[in-house]
């Protein structure tokens, strides 16, 4: 089948998509957008998190066909004009990145949280990020990064 959608502000069209492919597969293997990751492919780890028409989703659980005509924003679309988004900047500075495989998902999920709530409490941060698994950091530095990003975004 043919799939048309907007990805990171750009009109994209892909041919010969097999009906069983997930949005994650299409983003990665057909569009070359490898930023969204494939850690569990059953919606448990959040590493494939993207926005689908403004809603945070696990792209591994979205069939490619469901994205027809939709606007998709991936981790590759967060930085503007070569400038990191404050969430991305905070993850680097706070040491929230080790192997980095969960990072794109955490960055997108944090971006979503801070859009809704720029002054989240610790419990709110933990609840919002409970669908994202990290195996390296023990989450402490991720919490630091979210607080740092929130502070900077609230100040700007």
């Amino acid at each position: 089948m043919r799939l048309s959608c907007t990805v990171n502000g750009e009109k994209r069209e892909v041919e010969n998509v097999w009906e069983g492919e997930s949005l994650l597969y299409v983003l990665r293997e057909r569009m070359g957008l490898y930023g969204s990751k494939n850690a569990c492919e059953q919606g448990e780890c959040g590493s494939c998190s993207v926005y689908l028409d403004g809603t945070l989703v696990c792209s591994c659980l979205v069939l490619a066909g469901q994205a027809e005509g939709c606007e998709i924003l991936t981790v590759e679309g967060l930085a503007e004009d070569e400038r990191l988004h404050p969430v991305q900047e905070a993850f680097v500075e706070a040491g929230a990145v080790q192997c980095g495989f969960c990072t794109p998902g955490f960055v997108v999920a944090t971006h979503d949280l801070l859009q809704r709530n720029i002054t989240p409490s610790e419990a709110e941060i933990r609840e919002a990020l409970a669908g994202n698994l990290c195996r390296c950091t023990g989450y402490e530095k991720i919490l630091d990064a979210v607080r740092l990003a929130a502070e900077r975004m609230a100040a700007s």
Partner: protein
Amino acid sequence: MTRAETIPTTPTRERPETPVSTPGRVGESTTRADGVPKVTGEFEYSSDLWMDGMLYGATLRSPHPHANIWSVDTSEAEAVPGIFAVLTHEDVPGRKVCGMEVPDQPVLAWERVRYQGEPIALVAADHPETARRALEKISVEYEVLDPITDAEEAMREDTPKLHLSGNLLRHIHVVHGDVDTAEADVVVEGEYEVGMQDQAFLGPESGLAVPDGRGGVDLYISTQWLHIDRDQVAESLGLEPDQVRLHLSGVGGAFGGREDLSMQIHSCLLALHTGRPVKMMYNREESFYGHVHRHPARMRYEHGATRDGKLVYIKARLVFDGGAYASSSNAVCLNAGTFACGPYDVPNALVDSYMLYTNNPPCGAMRGFGAVQVCFAHEAQMDKLAKALGMDPVELRIKNAIKPGDRFPFGQEVPPPAPVAELLERLKAMPMPEEEDITGRDLRRLPGGVSNVTHGEGVRRGVGYAVGYKNVGFSAGFDDYSTAKVTLSVEGGEPLVRVHTAAAEVGQGIVTLEAQIARTELGVNKIAVLPADTSIDSAGSTSASRQSYVTGAAVKAACEAVREKVFARVREEFGEDPDGLSIEDGNVVAEGHGIVVPLAELLDGEEIGELVKYRHKPTYPLDENGQGDAHVQFAFAAQRAIVEVDEELGLVRVVEVATTQDVGKAMNPQALEGQIEGGIAQGLGLALLEEIQVKEGRIQNASFTDYLLPTILDMPPVKMEILELADPDAPYGLKGVGEPPTIASTPAIVAALRDATGRELNRVPVKPEHIVGISGPTGQPPQPGSRGPAAERA
């Protein structure tokens, strides 16, 4: 199959350039050079590789844990449109077995399979789904055999042998003093069990093999040790080592699970067979079958002490289930045998550590490597002993803490620094978190959290302590070395240092550390750490907490060699005494005279490069009584866990983990904290959540839905105090830091659970049913409120 006419030699997707980093010297928190590409999604992991004309590989695995194979028919699969190759063991041109320590594992099984998930055949197709469907068309005729699923059963004489060498893979026998004549006033016994934990690195096994058109192959791969992979791949392909070139791709975590081969040989076989690039990428379910796990263990202990709390003897019998193939089980068995007694001064000890082959999933390296299992047991024993003596558990540990000059039960003298007592004293002095009222508390801060199942009625608080230790680096006579090439040049008018090693960056931050060392030693700000590959000699494995030590030392030595050359040139040209020289901000500076010459001018377009191989001091194998200077360095950590437990519902919230650790030198404090926090999270997982459930040799929970990992809701705040007591033999005095946190946290958390519930809890992970007492791990359900089967003979 015809070879593709044109074979691209590098992946077509533009590979990110080597990041050049600027700030940060040794001892300073330095952000990762690969941090920016990782947050933007540009960092290239091995599952992100893509090339024109690339095929997807897939693996047929045995559904049976134990079976004879009578025939494999691939004809139907070969006829599937879009299939380019179907391979079996007959297509392995070289050595048909592989293995890190013992080559006992078939590259592709023939005649017999010994575990569920053992690879039998491979396919390559133009779409991963086509490949998966073709696998279903391969017909294998099995004769299903009874699996041997219990290590004790495997040890019995009348049990069928899984390998020609028998089922006993290794036995370590440690005799220290004489336990038979030792007289103790107080004796405690216990039996402990550790379940099978998974490394659960997030980036699944993957790689891209690219034929070079001349019979050789390039493999872009996630691994912990390029060279041991390279040697095994070359041997099985029947190629010379230099025909097989490995390039480290982005690695999504490792924790021991990438020390053994997964798809390395398979993808190269498919690539060479089809003449096309072949990518292989496991999904999560396959990943559970695609790498080894932490060994499950059953451990029986007896501790004897004087009435005033001095250890008199320890007896331990440890039985590890190695699963179907050897992996690194030999070394795990040795580690467990040597660390079985804990970091305590014990005059008499008898330890028997057994490693068995079974038809369970193969087990091997995971963070903590044999020390994790025994630490859970020896620390539970110390608590039990403290209780029998009516002593404070921390006091008992301090009283028996090992110190420099003592001898470990395996005969080696304890080298300085070994601040076990100090770590415990400092830990005890760390402030406790304030107790929060249960009533009116945000539900997210109660055991069970947002599930809203408790309002705090049955919640009890508990505190537990543990201290753990482990060797750093490879042991027992292994030739453990690393290689570094450091090149000083001038680019764009500015001095630049290039550092090249084959050390695998798996997330821990060795690339950052290499840059910090070069910056410190050569006084140059711009450092480029080149991609790791096999064009340089081995850096050894990224495991055993060893890379900062061994590759760190190699980079430091190579920098020193470059610096010597710089100074020699200065002396030649300027007549300065090199003793008073240093390099600062890209200038050669003489003490008291200021700048002698900028490096840019001195080098005058030339480069100075030095290649250094570094070896740590030798270690020795154990003798027949388990005695020997087996290890090079020891790292210690102590931890205190505070838990809240709902006794009626079996729910747990870990409130806080506090830790003290001796790191020798905090090379990159922020990264160090990350290692400690991440290590604690994995120990918490083993304490409360993580177990691969294996029934009759079959994995029951090969997914992240059913294999539970700690989330951000499970992980408590971590408080830490870092000691920097230099090891005189190590670069900058540093100690390996990755493993001790994982070792100490499991026993500390379970001790806190025992404190809160009064239950025995002698198996990890502790499950809700153990806390509420529905089933006892030894088959005898303890009565509510009881302390379990009475084992004390006070």
